[in-house]
């Protein structure tokens, strides 16, 4: 391992070191604000180190890690999202009773897991990263242990995630049995060589799909999503919806493209089916949902369904579109959850859509952010979601995936209905039911998010240029 290898792992090292330092600090001085400040700083440093790392790329640390621009990009997305979630969590977690400093610590460990996924080139890292992510998330989901739903969500998430991990693991084992290697590239090269894949290798891929499908919340592995989103503290839901999914998407794309899954009819059919099911069922489930967190959960199911379309394009451009879509989806989702978080008191969350009545008039600023988020999710011009959908449809159509695109269009319309329901509720007259005031800290995050949504929506050219220049496999 050379020094360059070390440099190329800088972001990971920063993220890994942060919890260590935090533990030490906590043991010396248990102060919420200090820990919070430190974690924000650490994330910023990690993010900054990305640029430093950039000059040493691409580099693969055999046989486990692949650090290339692609993974760097995902790292950036993950870290930035985690940073935003951290900032948004401040007020919410601050009002929790009992120990709460460990929240940020756990956030780091889970981010480390997610980061590992982004650079994974090997089943071991894949598995370890996933487990690190999951285990930390169990804690985060159930962090509010005085609340029964939070605990329930935690145990549900734990059990189901474990089952899915078991599937994933069994699948990996089968593939390893068939190919004798656990490196993505190795698996891919072996698969290319032989036309007839052994039966159990295919079974292995299928079982891996369960594990990945679970994390991405694809139908029919989606059922945990609404329950966990609802039970978990709002910022954690945001985290699950973004970082966790983004990381898994990163590894899925890499793996899928390595083995050229899009060329296989089997994968094509299965992924298409998952995508179509996710779109329809996700959107239909959200249609009449009264709980905004569950609604966002269902919406995330549908959105992952949309994203799968790009997986099937099998081109760099498809990946680029996916990256753009993820970025815009993250900004938007964090925006939506951010408003929920900031308007919630940790004991009693503001999660019914009706709770937001009159928000337009009592809290125009928060309402604006939530409205923008909803419009962005619905893909309306002026928002990031519009360009993202456009990009997605563009690449999807170019790859000739007409059926999926049509399904997506139909679902966009269904989806629009429930996003509008949220907005309508906000401008329906109602009273300010004692929602908490938003702190400066929270407002800053909201400003960032709003700018993000608008800039990506109005002038996305620069980002698209960067992505097309840098991101490829």
């Amino acid at each position, binding site marked *: 391992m050379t020094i360059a290898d070390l440099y190329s792992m800088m972001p990971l090292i920063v993220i890994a070191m942060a919890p260590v330092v935090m533990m030490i600090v906590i043991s010396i001085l248990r102060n919420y604000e200090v820990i919070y400040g430190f974690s924000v700083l650490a994330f910023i440093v990690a993010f900054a180190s990305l640029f430093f790392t950039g000059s040493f790329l691409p580099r693969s640390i055999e046989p486990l890690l692949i650090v290339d621009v692609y993974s760097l990009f995902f790292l950036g997305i993950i870290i930035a999202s985690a940073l935003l979630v951290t900032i948004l969590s401040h007020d919410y977690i601050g009002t929790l009773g009992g120990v709460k400093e460990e929240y940020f610590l756990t956030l780091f460990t889970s981010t480390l897991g997610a980061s590992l996924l982004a650079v994974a080139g090997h089943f071991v890292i894949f598995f370890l990263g996933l487990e690190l992510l999951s285990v930390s998330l169990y804690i985060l989901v159930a962090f509010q242990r005085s609340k029964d739903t939070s605990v329930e969500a935690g145990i549900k998430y734990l059990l189901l995630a474990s089952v899915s991990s078991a599937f994933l693991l069994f699948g990996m084992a089968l593939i390893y049995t068939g190919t004798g290697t656990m490196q993505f590239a190795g698996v891919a090269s072996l698969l290319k060589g032989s036309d007839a894949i052994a039966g159990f290798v295919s079974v292995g891929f299928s079982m891996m799909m369960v594990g990945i499908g679970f994390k991405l919340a694809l139908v029919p592995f989606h059922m945990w999503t609404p329950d966990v989103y609802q039970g978990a503290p709002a910022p954690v839901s945001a985290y699950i919806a973004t970082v966790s999914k983004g990381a898994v998407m990163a590894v899925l794309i890499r793996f899928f493209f390595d083995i050229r899954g899009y060329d296989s009819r089997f994968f094509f059919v299965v992924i298409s089916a998952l995508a179509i099911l996710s779109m329809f069922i996700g959107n239909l489930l959200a249609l009449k949902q009264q709980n905004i967190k569950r609604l966002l959960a269902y919406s995330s199911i549908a959105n992952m369904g949309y994203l799968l379309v790009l997986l099937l394009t099998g081109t760099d451009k498809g990946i680029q579109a996916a990256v753009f879509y993820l970025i815009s989806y993250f900004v938007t989702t964090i925006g939506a959850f951010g408003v929920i978080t900031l308007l919630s008191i940790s004991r009693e969350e503001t999660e019914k859509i009706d709770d937001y009545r009159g928000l*337009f*008039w009592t809290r125009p600023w928060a309402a604006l952010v939530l409205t923008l988020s909803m*419009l962005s999710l619905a893909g*309306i*011009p*002026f928002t990031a979601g*519009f*360009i993202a959908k*456009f990009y997605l*449809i*563009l690449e999807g*159509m*170019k790859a000739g995936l007409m059926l999926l*695109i*049509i399904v997506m*269009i139909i679902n*966009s*319309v269904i989806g*629009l*209905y429930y996003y*509008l329901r949220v*907005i*309508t509720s906000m*401008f*329906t007259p109602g009273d300010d039911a004692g929602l908490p005031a938003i702190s400066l800290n929270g407002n800053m995050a909201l400003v960032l998010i709003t700018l993000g949504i608008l800039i990506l929506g109005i*002038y*996305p*050219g620069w980002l*698209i*240029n960067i992505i*097309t220049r840098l991101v490829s496999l």
Partner: protein
Amino acid sequence: MILAYLILILLAGSLLALLTGRKGNLWPRVISVAAVSLDLVLLIIFSSSVSGTDGKWLMDLQLEWIPRFGISLHLALDGLSLVMVLLTLFLGIISVVISWKEINSRVGFFHFNLLLILAGIIGVFLSLDLFLFYFFWEMMLVPMYFMIGIWGHENRTAASYKFFLYTQASGLLMFIAILALVFVHESTSGTLTFDYVQLLGLEMPAAKELLIMSGFLAAFLVKLPVVPLHNWLPDAHSQAPTAGSVILAALLLKTGAYGLIRFVVPLFPSASAAFAPVGMGLGVIGILYGAKLAFAQTDLKRLVAYTSVSHMGFVILGVFAFNVIAYQGVVMQMIAHAISTGALFILAGQLYERIHTRDMDQMGGLWEKTPVMGAIGMIFSLASLGLPGLANFVAELLTLLGTFKASVLMASLACLGLVAATIYSLRIVQKVFFGKMNHEWEIADLNLREKIVSAVLVVLVVALGLFPRPVLNLAGPAIIKTLDSHPAQLTGLPDSGKSAGNGKTASFNQLSGMFKKH
């Protein structure tokens, strides 16, 4: 650059209105009027300084936007769009003025939306980049949805959903079609571009052309609207606040018609020619079905909404007749309908303000109390039935005549719409202003502000009825250019005048020929 300013001024105005909304209700109103007037003045000054009768763009602006996809901010103005933009700005001012007293809550936000809609509509009329066009096309929806949903009548929520979902669904189909078109162009020429000018004259297989065109048609026909895709309209129109109804009827519907002329016909010449019989049929169905339903309504605004369906039937009829006369008629119809229907909605709003109902069964005999309002109502009802001397007559005449050249059968059926229009229009006057008073309404006649608005509209509808030439002359070159190379024009729809020159023979063949064409 002036074209971009037109939109930017409105956007800036909308933000200002939003921000000053807290300071008081007057500010947003003044700002809105100022912004729209400024636009109008600018446009008039600059458009009068450029002259172009040869069908070229009067103004043209192209800025980079998303170069990766060949998307640019391409705005251009020709006679047709100039007419439409002028109309938009004019009715924009009217909309602000009529909301002066009607809208008293969230005034800042209201005007924010209003100006945003106007910006979107102007964008639609000016865009020459298909992506930009779609961008503006969708941009109009959200503020309109707010307008209906916040300031609307009792069923506003359902109406706003219906409006948004309908138009969004059809818009997405158009979006797909845009992409498909762009890809076809890319595969033949190798460049990815959304630019209208470059996409013109693209050769493609007939089936594909038809398919892509149907995507565009979906969006435009829903907006127009055409039966049976019209259901969003009565709800949206009747539930929206007055300014919303006016903008919906007078402007939003026109974007559909504009889209047909600007995009469908030039981009898909042969497919549109093939579609013509169906299109005309839809037009006729719209005319008659809209009229039939208009007659059955008791809700005044709903009635007027269905008359829009009927009147827009003439537009689609004319568009698929592919000749200059019909197109001039379509342009006139857009303007005339905008004015007359807008005025009727304003009237309904004024009545609602006074007696708090839109149910015509509750009205009656109001002439006695409000002769001025009655006279205005009468004039616009007459306009709506196409009385000569008013703008609608010129429009319907040209449309029908143009259609007659293309298809005798369709035009003749559409003429039945004239009778139907008489029936429903007179019903308005009869039910609202004539007869006995059902209730002892103690209502005041129009005040000065309302009088001025109505008077301006009356003057306009009469002036355009008697002197329609400014509009016709403005739109003329653009129309001729649009139709110039259209196959329906070249293959020769029956040119009976010329063939009749052969003498007194073969008249019967001619006639049967005329019937057969479509």
